[in-house]
């Protein structure tokens, strides 16, 4: 783990490295998506998707979100990964609602959305406050409450 660093000084903007461009990213995503399409086609083999497939997709998305929470250090992106996880769960709920014919599954999804909205708002307010004081959005810097 990173050692607690002092508040980072803002560096010269011209030296900023914005990382790979958006176009490149979209390209990589497209390639990856194509691969996934191929895999899914094989899995489905012309049949309609079953509940298992939806839930499986939900699981994969959830795991990706969880990994994102573990691996990303920017607080905002971390939050976005949490939203990703919530969405994955929503897919599962809707799938089960369809499977069992119960509208309650979809109602729960609605509630999840509402709560997620409230949670994001409050969380972002806190992040803003933290950023005001520490001038850093790196979660590794927030390690004051330790032994």
């Amino acid at each position, binding site marked *: 783990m*990173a050692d607690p660093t002092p508040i980072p000084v803002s560096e010269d*903007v011209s030296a900023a*490295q914005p990382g*790979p461009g*958006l176009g490149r*990213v979209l390209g*990589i*995503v497209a390639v990856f*998506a194509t691969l*996934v*399409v191929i895999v*899914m086609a094989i899995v489905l083999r*012309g049949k*309609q*998707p*079953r*509940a298992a497939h*939806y*839930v499986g997709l939900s699981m*994969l998305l*959830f*795991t*990706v979100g*969880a990994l*994102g929470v*573990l*691996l*990303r*250090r*920017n607080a*905002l*992106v971390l*939050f*976005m*990964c949490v*939203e990703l996880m919530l969405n994955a769960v*929503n897919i599962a709920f*809707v799938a089960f*609602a*369809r*499977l069992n*014919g119960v*509208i*309650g599954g979809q109602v729960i*999804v*609605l509630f999840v959305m*509402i*709560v997620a*909205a409230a949670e*994001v*708002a*409050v969380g972002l*307010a806190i992040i*803003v*406050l933290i*950023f005001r004081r520490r*001038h*850093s*959005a*790196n979660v590794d810097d927030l390690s004051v409450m330790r032994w």
Partner: protein
Amino acid sequence: MTLFVLFGAVALGAAVGMLFQRNAVHAALLLVVNLLSVAVLFLTLGAEFLFVAQIIVYAGAIVILFLFVIMLLGVDREEVLTEPRRFQTRQWVLGGIAGVILLAALAGTLGGARMLQALPGTPAGFGSAESIGTSLFSTYLLPFEVTGLLLLVATIGILMLAKREPR
């Protein structure tokens, strides 16, 4: 079926892309793609109201909020936009292990007979705004009211939190 395959792949791809994207704004945009794909998946499952709600609330409000905050904090600042790529190995290892275990565990649920059957048909109006609204105001009235209260509390809380100290 094609809808599922297509949009499922896009959703998965956008998620993975978000995982590796260093730029926060790009990550937000990929999240939007993901949310929209999920909305379409809702539609394929017969949840029309949720399809619309997802687009309006999630993609249209929450991610916008994210982008607002990113811009508020200064989109030109490196600390906000990017992340250093140091000391990640342990996290990768631990995360990888945890992720594998999680996936394996969850996969155990997929074998059931009912899960592999064809999805049953739905009565007309299943997932429509009318049906959801009816259950919201009958069976789920209490949670509905409580979420109203929740939103109120959240609003007040945010106001208190974000108030600037008077100098």
